């Protein structure tokens, strides 16, 4: 939950402004790819896919219920989803493969991979990061949702991942650090991709975990807001988020 909210601004900007996708033809060959490598917080992606027109929003009301396509982590069964994810550290490698295919096929699509900050503790991320710059994949974008918390505590208390800008630069990426909850910065940054020709682009997006719901903001506990929450809290959360359509 906390991660879905911290990245909501970026996923909104991607699906409603940046991504070249066709809801009528989700497997369109020219489409941009998006991978929610972090997996958890699929609910944020489902809302964006519905808003972009991949399916009616009512479908996601079955979220996490028996037989639903919409689980905690996204699945290929959902129109518009390019990769089933959930286990951490997988998405960037797959994104590298998609981006190499794009280069070889002389196609202009881009590949966007959203990573959790805790996910960067997985070694496989760095195998992928090394290969992305080696193959000069300027059609590949890694977005790090830097909300500062993993499941149990702050990343820097569990296993420190900073300094992130230096790390990604040293792996050969062009890097920008932004406020990932500031829509103007998010849109400007996404429109500036690639930051450098022949280099993959990394966006370190500082965000607030649980953004938009005051009693969850900046708290590790927001990671699992497993239902059903007290009715009063639901009411307050919906009011703070600007109501329910």
């Amino acid at each position, binding site marked *: 939950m906390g991660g879905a909210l911290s990245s909501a601004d970026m996923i909104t900007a991607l699906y409603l402004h940046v991504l070249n996708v066709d809801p009528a033809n989700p497997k369109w*060959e020219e489409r941009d*790819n998006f991978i929610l490598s972090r997996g958890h917080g699929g609910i944020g992606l489902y809302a964006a896919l519905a808003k972009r027109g991949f399916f009616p929003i009512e479908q996601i009301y079955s979220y996490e219920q028996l037989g639903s396509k919409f689980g905690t982590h996204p699945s*290929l069964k959902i129109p518009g989803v*390019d*990769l*089933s994810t*959930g*286990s951490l*550290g*997988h998405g*960037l*490698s*797959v*994104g*590298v*493969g*998609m*981006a*190499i*295919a*794009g280069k*070889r*096929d002389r196609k202009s699509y881009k590949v966007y991979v959203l990573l959790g900050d805790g996910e960067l503790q997985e*070694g*496989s991320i760095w*195998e*992928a990061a*090394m*290969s992305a710059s080696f*193959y000069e994949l300027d059609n590949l974008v890694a977005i790090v949702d830097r909300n500062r918390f993993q499941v149990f505590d702050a990343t820097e208390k569990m296993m420190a991942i900073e300094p992130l800008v230096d790390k990604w630069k040293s792996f050969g990426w062009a890097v920008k650090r932004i406020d990932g909850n500031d829509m103007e910065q998010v849109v400007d940054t996404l429109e500036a991709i690639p930051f450098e020709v022949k280099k993959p682009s990394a966006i370190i997006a500082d965000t607030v975990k649980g953004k938009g719901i005051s009693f969850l903001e900046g708290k590790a506990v927001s990671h699992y807001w497993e239902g059903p929450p007290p009715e009063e809290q639901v009411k307050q959360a919906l009011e703070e988020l600007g109501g329910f359509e």
Partner: protein
Amino acid sequence: MSYQKPVTTLYDEAVTALARENENIYSVDAEGVWMNTHFREAFPERAIQVGIAEQNLVGVSAGLASRGKIVFANTMAAFITMRACEQVKVDVAYQGFNVKLVASITGVYGAYYGTTHHGLADIAIMRAIPNMVVVVPGDSLEVKKIVNAAVEHYGPMYIRLDYVEPIYEEDYPFELGKAVTLRDGKDVTLIATGSMVKRALRAAEMLSKQGIDARVLNMHTIKPIDEKAIIEAGKETGGIVTLEEHSVVGGLGGAVAKIVTDKAPTYVKRIGFQDTFCEIIGPYNEILEQYKLLPPHIVDATLGFLKRIKK
């Protein structure tokens, strides 16, 4: 015997030949360079090197496959199935992507490299993953047939390139999931895969001199396995000996035992590595000798088995 090309060269040549006609065929390797020498030379744009990074090997292959490529991902058996096991499960099998995971240095072919480089659990691991087809060519000619079948079959596949020598003298029809009867017999059936197929044939010849008429099946596809051939073997010969250069836990022997217990109760003897690491250093053939996997050992084990089941 005439000059025998290494199995990896036969494989490389087969993939390269198909890639001339199909521009969607890619070859990815994690320093498995002996597996795509020809391919890299012929199609440098479609040969992707990821370095010593097996997790990335499988993930990158999955990404290429999601974009319509037919991907051969190459490295050693021990590493592609264990170091990258979760990538195999999640990025390839769960997605259903068209990636062929190809392993060389299988079984104890890594001999004096030691235990780290032996692949004795790979079949068991791959068998347990849904959507995965598991094949092991048993002869030089079959390598090419399996590569052709891999391109025709859409979906995840594990190809185990055991050390093999020529068996087939002429062409024969190959079908995924259908065992090949190399020798008919009525007293016992030897079901072998990969490197053990030729050893089983030699053992059968030796058994025939002792009056034992052994059937020999080349079980090149371990999943989906040829149930019919196993059930017939049980009913018609009354006893089955399985042979694999692999642990007896979960490999060919496990797959055969499952069919037998479910559908046609029969005595089964499993020959392979008995739930142990191979910790002996030495040349390949001498290690096989130590672990009793050569034709004379197969003969002794089969005779003992037949005595025990009172045939």
